[in-house]
């Protein structure tokens, strides 16, 4: 075996480490340890001169192991591994000791911090002694992409990728793509008609030669890894043949059965065979089996009789489609907070207390009132109150700010002013207009004569105190600064309900092996520097499933994810984990515990030898198998027993 020559580099991290840890002492101590050839400390190891110092030492002193004692490996392990590689070492010759998060940041005791830093350095020195070079392997990237969710986020990402001549499978669980954006009336602050700017994109998706749209479908299972995922998608039965249907709409006209429209947020009605809205893509209706007279009672089939194309197919069944893709973009969107849970707001009790999204439909020309802002009884409201932060910034529901409510409340105010002579009250705790041109919009609304009332709403009551009264409402609000209570009279109350993570976000997270934050939204790799990727390589999160955001932010994030996917496609190959597991077949008893535990399906059983074997292309090196193997037959490379034992000894000695 060649002589082990270790270089140890202690980082000051400005004063982050050096402020607590005596770096000179740690460096001096490291110099006394076995096999350590050189130990230095430096202000910022990750800086250009710091990196050059390591590279120079590797060459001039013949180092074959490198330790940097600095921050968490999360950020800079790749940096220093690259430095090692550029100087001709295998990247696995490197070891990082975390003396910042694990040491200097968690104590103010200089002496103990220094002592711990020394122990961590010693552990790294002992461990790195046993490091072995590992072979870096690459696998090709499948150029197809799966996008889950056909709202604006999914649509944008799909178009960007497909326009580069790469195939996209766009999966949408509703009958049409469009998401929440297609429900909106106008968009802030420019007051563009939401449908007018979105429908061209939707129809592009519908006819794009590189996009395969799987509407009314859900992803059921995802396996594989970056570059080659396999996804099982359930295409739910529409009971309408997509090939034959011409989208003439006659079936919808003739269907005698009406139910509440989800698209109109319960304000309007739709037929049982329906497209959710006129510009639906694909323009193919679905039969709502739960409410269809034929499915429930065995009679009717009116749609079938009138369909000239013969497209109605009551025998249709769900279909499972399997696709192979290299990358997956998750754009599953959000749901809005149900304000009926918070009974003080009177939602569900008073007819004229509605949500912001219901107001969008009320205001929209294709909506249930043809765009007239009116009360339940058809009369025009004399005063409308918009209540902010319903379920957001509220410790009882969601701590976070939903980010869009202030702006859409302003937009709603403008529309009310434009369409009626109504008084408009904004009842807010803070107005947050952070985006480009948003402040101008706010100033404009101030000039338009909207009344801004600062206060947290305590309750919404009927003006005459009677529960059942559907007339005038009184909003009682308390100013958080001086506890002054204000009462605002209104005919209509619009609740700006929070954006929250989808009800089934947890299942989606499981299917895709991605994480969620405590607030329910999907977790990005890094909140600032990588808000698009997830901890699972090849899977990206965009739009409101990652956190509340407005349309411009969603579009930017979707484009960013598309760029990431295209980068990987154009590179054509991806490095896969080298620190995989191996099974010693001599020791394996073939109990197959590892096979069942492996979260990546990387282990298979060799029948004739009655032992298990690891598929290194699938193995992510998580180590679950090595920990579970009762015979101790499995070794995780780069986490061998020898290495771990040496590291533990190093900390303890």
């Amino acid at each position, binding site marked *: 075996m060649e002589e082990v020559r270790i270089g140890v580099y202690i980082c000051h991290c400005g004063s982050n480490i050096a402020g607590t840890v005596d770096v000179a002492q740690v460096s001096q101590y490291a110099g006394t340890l076995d096999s350590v050839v050189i130990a230095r400390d430096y202000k910022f190891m990750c800086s250009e001169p710091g990196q050059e110092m390591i590279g120079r030492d590797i060459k001039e002193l013949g180092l074959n192991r490198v330790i940097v004692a600095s921050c968490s490996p999360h950020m800079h392990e790749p940096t220093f591994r690259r430095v090692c590689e550029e100087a001709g070492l295998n990247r696995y010759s490197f070891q990082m000791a975390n003396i910042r998060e694990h040491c200097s940041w968690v104590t103010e005791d200089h002496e103990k911090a220094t002592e711990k830093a020394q122990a961590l350095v010693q552990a790294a020195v002992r461990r790195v002694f046993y490091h072995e070079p590992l072979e870096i392997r690459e696998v090709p990237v499948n150029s197809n992409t799966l996008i889950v969710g056909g709202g604006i986020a999914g649509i944008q990402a799909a178009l960007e990728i497909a326009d580069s001549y790469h195939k996209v499978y766009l999966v949408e669980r509703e009958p049409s793509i469009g998401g929440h954006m297609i429900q909106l009336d106008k968009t802030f602050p420019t007051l563009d008609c939401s449908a007018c700017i979105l429908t061209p994109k939707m129809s592009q998706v519908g006819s794009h030669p590189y996009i395969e749209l799987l509407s009314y479908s859900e992803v059921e299972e995802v396996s594989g890894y970056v570059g080659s995922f396999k996804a099982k998608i359930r295409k739910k039965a529409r009971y309408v043949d997509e090939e034959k249907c011409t989208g003439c709409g006659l079936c919808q006209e003739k269907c005698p059965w009406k139910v509440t429209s989800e698209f109109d947020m319960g304000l309007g009605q739709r037929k049982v065979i329906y497209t959710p809205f006129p510009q639906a893509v694909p323009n193919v209706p679905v039969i709502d089996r739960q409410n269809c007279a034929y499915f429930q009672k065995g009679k009717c089939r009116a749609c079938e009789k009138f369909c000239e194309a013969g497209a109605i197919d009551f025998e249709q069944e769900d279909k499972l489609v399997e696709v192979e893709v290299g990358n997956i973009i998750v754009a599953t969107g959000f749901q809005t907070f149900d304000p009926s849970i918070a009974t003080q707001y009177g939602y569900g009790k008073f007819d004229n207390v509605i949500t912001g999204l219901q107001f969008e439909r009320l205001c929209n020309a294709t909506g249930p009132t043809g765009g007239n802002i009116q009360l339940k009884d058809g009369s025009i409201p004399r005063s409308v109150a918009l209540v902010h932060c319903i379920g957001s910034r509220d410790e009882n529901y969601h701590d976070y700010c939903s980010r869009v409510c202030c702006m859409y409340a302003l937009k709603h105010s403008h529309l009310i002013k434009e369409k009626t002579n109504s008084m408009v009250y904004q009842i807010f705790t803070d107005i947050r207009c952070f985006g480009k041109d948003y402040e101008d919009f706010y100033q404009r609304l101030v000039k338009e004569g909207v009344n801004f009332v600062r206060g947290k709403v305590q309750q919404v009551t009927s003006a005459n105190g009677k529960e059942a009264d559907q007339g005038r409402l009184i909003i009682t609000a308390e100013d958080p600064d001086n506890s002054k209570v204000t009462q605002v009279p209104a005919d209509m109350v619009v609740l700006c309900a929070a954006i929250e993570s989808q009800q089934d976000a947890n299942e989606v997270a499981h299917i895709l092996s991605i994480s969620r934050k405590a607030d329910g939204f999907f977790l990005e790799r890094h909140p600032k520097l990588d808000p698009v990727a997830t901890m699972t390589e090849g899977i990206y999160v965009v739009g409101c499933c990652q956190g509340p955001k407005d349309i411009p932010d969603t579009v930017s994030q979707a484009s960013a994810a598309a760029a990431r996917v295209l980068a990987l496609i154009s590179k054509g190959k991806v490095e896969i984990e080298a620190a995989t597991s191996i099974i010693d077949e001599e*020791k394996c008893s073939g109990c197959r*515990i590892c096979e069942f535990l492996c979260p990546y399906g990387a282990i298979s059983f060799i029948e004739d030898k009655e032992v298990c074997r690891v598929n290194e292309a699938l193995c992510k090196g998580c180590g679950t198998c090595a920990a579970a193997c009762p015979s101790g037959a499995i070794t995780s490379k780069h986490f061998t027993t020898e290495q771990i034992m040496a590291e533990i000894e190093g900390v303890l000695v």
Partner: protein
Amino acid sequence: MNLELTQQIRDQARGLLKSGTVKGVIGYERASDGLTARPFFAYELTGTDQLIFDETCSHNLVKYLLDKKGEKMAVVVKPCDSLAINLLLNEEQIKREMVFIIGVSCTGVVETAWNQKSQTLQARCQTCRLPKPVVYDFLAEQEPIRRLEGELYPDILEMEAKPIASRREFWHEQFGRCIRCYACRQICPGCYCPECFAEQLSPLWVGIRIALGENELWQTNRTLHLAGRCTGCNECERACPMDIPLSLLNRKLEKEMEELFSFRAGLTSEEQPPFATFRKEEKLGFEE
């Protein structure tokens, strides 16, 4: 000798050998002390007359199946032994089609020693809740079928109630006597690793020295490797030449598995033991 059961076993064995269904039958015969029983392998028709069954048939014969993987064997199993069959099926160590199971509806076995037979049932039989095997191809039955109710773990509860220092003292005394002959491992149907951790040299998990520290490490590891897998046949304790009360360890874990996961090893061959499964929805207790 229980004539009723013995006759049923002999008839079945004869039929199986005659038809060539199995290569041999693993059962019990009378030991040379003329009083107790010992394992017996019948490969010839004539051998079947030596097969017996009675209250001295303590051995768990399932262990022998691990050495007979290539040929189809019949094996005589008591209800408690049958749990080990499911364990080995679940862990892919035996194939169902390679075993013919002659189940026996047992009424309990007694403590035996050479040329000695006690009148009282073994402690584990006193709390046994299995009237008949959980898996079998043929069942040798007798009336009445016995099923016991009552406290399953009186000794464990008593042990748990003791202060930690006195428990440590107790076990140090016990482990201090262990000679690491590994008889407990050799007889255990759940111990089948080709190379036991106790004999691995790189890394050396357990020192070779026979001393309290090493002995303790061996015994605790052996017990933990059987967590959720021990089927309670108690052969280890019977085989121990130093009379170490291993059932106290094994059944403590059995109790924990029951309380934590409502799991008892060997009841089915399908359900994975809790420690061999990973469910994402499982709460581990350290989440935020």
